[in-house]
């Protein structure tokens, strides 16, 4: 009894519960399986076809991704002789790990007055954004370690894009921090009890959302792994289980960013009665995720220089405007004042 109590109390402690169970590793895996299935089904319905149906036919093929992952595990892992073997194998694993790091500081609900967050710090927003900037570096390393010209071109594109979407993202987050007067994400969510940030400062919301789409290779910015020009960008040479890992990295990144987006702009878990806060949060996250993957069926992809131009001409300017707007609102007396 004592042992079970001990294990349960360890598991339910926020600093283990949040990164491991909800909204951490296990929830991410379930969400990704459902998300990729939803993406394929939505695209299929729009394109007048059926989509995945073979696996678990009665449920509409919902476990297709699980079948794909099982197949990847049994495929042969081919490592080219001229590739940098250590970085070739290590970089997908490291990329996956650092993608999940921001979950340590993102809150996921409140239970009986205690916020569900792993690490309560006063610079949570800054920590989350900085940790999320680590992933593109390892994507570039993946392309370099493959020793393949097409992978190299894909890595270069990822590098170009990285410098175009990071600045607007940081500036939009800064404007939210100015508006609510704190870098702690828990404080920002609690400050949105009466009205969401997205309604006060829509410029910041739009520019953060578009930078998020650009950073996770959703259409129309799916330039890194454009699979009709470069075979799969930096991921060309990967096979078997490593391929499953690298295909999961953009989706995990999308999930983490969406959690951040909902917490910053869409009121987090408010309006919520105590027990259901996490459920409301997950529902909001699912709506934003489904919208992001729906874009695949509508848009072609932009050219690289056009995407960079959008990053600097449109998003950068919009994020500057959002900072000015935040400053004006603060000068006017804060959210309650105006």
């Amino acid at each position, binding site marked *: 009894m004592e042992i079970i109590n001990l294990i349960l109390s360890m598991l339910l402690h926020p600093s283990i519960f949040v990164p491991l169970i909800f909204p951490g590793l296990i929830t991410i895996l379930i969400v990704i399986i459902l998300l990729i299935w939803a993406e394929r089904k939505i695209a299929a319905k729009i*394109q007048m076809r059926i989509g995945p149906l073979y696996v678990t036919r009665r449920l509409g093929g919902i476990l297709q991704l699980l079948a794909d992952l099982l197949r990847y595990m049994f495929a042969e892992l081919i490592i080219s002789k001229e590739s940098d073997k250590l970085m070739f194998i290590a970089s997908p694993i490291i990329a996956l790990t650092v993608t999940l790091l921001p979950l340590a500081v993102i809150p996921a609900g409140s239970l009986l007055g205690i916020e569900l967050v792993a690490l309560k710090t006063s610079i949570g927003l800054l920590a989350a954004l900085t940790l999320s900037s680590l992933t593109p570096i390892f994507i570039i390393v993946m392309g370099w370690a493959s020793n393949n*010209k097409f992978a190299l071109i894909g890595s270069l594109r990822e590098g170009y894009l990285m410098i175009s979407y990071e600045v607007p993202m940081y500036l939009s987050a800064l404007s939210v921090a100015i508006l609510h007067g704190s870098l702690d994400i828990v404080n920002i969510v609690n400050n949105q009890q009466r009205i969401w940030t997205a309604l006060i400062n829509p410029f910041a919301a739009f520019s953060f959302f578009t930078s998020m789409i650009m950073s996770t290779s959703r259409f129309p910015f799916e330039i890194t792994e454009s699979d009709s020009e470069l075979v799969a960008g930096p991921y060309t040479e990967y096979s078997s289980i490593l391929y499953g890992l690298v295909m999961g990295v953009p989706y995990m990144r999308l999930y983490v960013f969406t959690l951040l987006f909902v917490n910053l702009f869409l009121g987090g878990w408010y309006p919520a009665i105590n027990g259901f806060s996490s459920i409301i949060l997950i529902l909001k996250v699912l709506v934003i995720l489904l919208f992001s993957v729906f874009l695949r069926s509508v848009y072609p992809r932009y050219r690289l220089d056009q995407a960079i131009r959008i990053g600097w001409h449109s998003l950068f300017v919009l994020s500057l405007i959002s900072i000015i707007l935040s400053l004006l609102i603060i000068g006017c007396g804060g959210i309650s004042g105006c």
Partner: protein
Amino acid sequence: MKMVLPKSQNSEKEIELFIGPQHPASGHMRFIGRVDGDIFTKFIPDPGWVHRGIEKIAENRKWIQIIPLVERAAILDAANMNIGYVIALEKLLDIEAPPRAQYLRTLLCEINRITSHLYGFGIAGIMIGSSTFYMWPFADREPLIDIAQLITGSRLTYSYMIPGGVRRDLPQGFKEKALKALKYIERRLNNDYFRLFFDNPVTKARYKGVGVLKKDDAIKLGIVGPNLRASNVKYDVRKVEPYAAYSELEFDIAYREEGDCYARLMVRVEEIRQSIKIIRQILNKMPQGPIIHKKYERLISLKKLEEYQKTGVFGLPAIFATLRPPAGEVISRVEAARGELIFHIISTGDLRPYRLRMVTPSFRNMVLFRELISGARVMDFPAIYGSIDYFPPESDR
């Protein structure tokens, strides 16, 4: 390795790319390019991977056996390849098909033109990343392929036209089904395609101003088809040297002045509209009469004659197996979906042709890869490829 680019000045900065046959964006052919940063400094096409030797095989086949042979050069466009050869053969034999057969031939050619352009749209869509615009045109070819199946009995390779006429007559109830299919295509083209793809700001950003081909360059390089008409040259074989029933039908030549990728796509959209107009006129004005020249109609056996008068299916007479056209040299040209198709046949009065020369429109357009892509960005390559509507098997024959 002979197929290389000449040595470059700064070989340390430039990457040499072989976009080979095993690539999602190349089709059945290879491209060799040199990339400096984001620009192709040099780019050459390397065709020949699907060469089947149609011209050489034709020297070994009887005249009537060449009809299925030349159709396989470009399966999408089989009717136009078919009619080009049959017109050349009829010039040698000095006969002309009866009016109803001419109208039936035109009907099949125009249906083929629409399906070929829809295929081209699908390839253009997937090249710049729009998977929805890849699935929609391919699915919308189905009503038209069903119509073609009603006329000829097969979906893609028809072998419908024979010297002297065509092989089958229209079945009952054809006109209603055809008009229904045309209405569906028109609605899809004018509403859904424009809303999804042609008016999409991302498409316009990828296509406008990209791969501009000026009028003088187009004429100098010998470009044909919608690519030529998008550069302000109003040349269409159906108006210059009318064949089949085109001299009696009303339609306009689709053309644009800008010469960029968007103009080439819009010329194809307009051609689909004109083809729909032509098919509607054919269905209204179709004359009654025989579908095969009387010289051959007299030569089939009595039993087959009864079957022909009952079902409208014409079985080939035995004389076609030993057809010997008189000696001579003929040139025929037709407007296939991708441009002008030339047949140059030399006969010595034998069972087989002495020389069959077939110049397909894709082969004449191949030089556009070198001219338009050298100096363009790497990501312009799929956009330009999709807009030229190049079909490697048609080019290699």
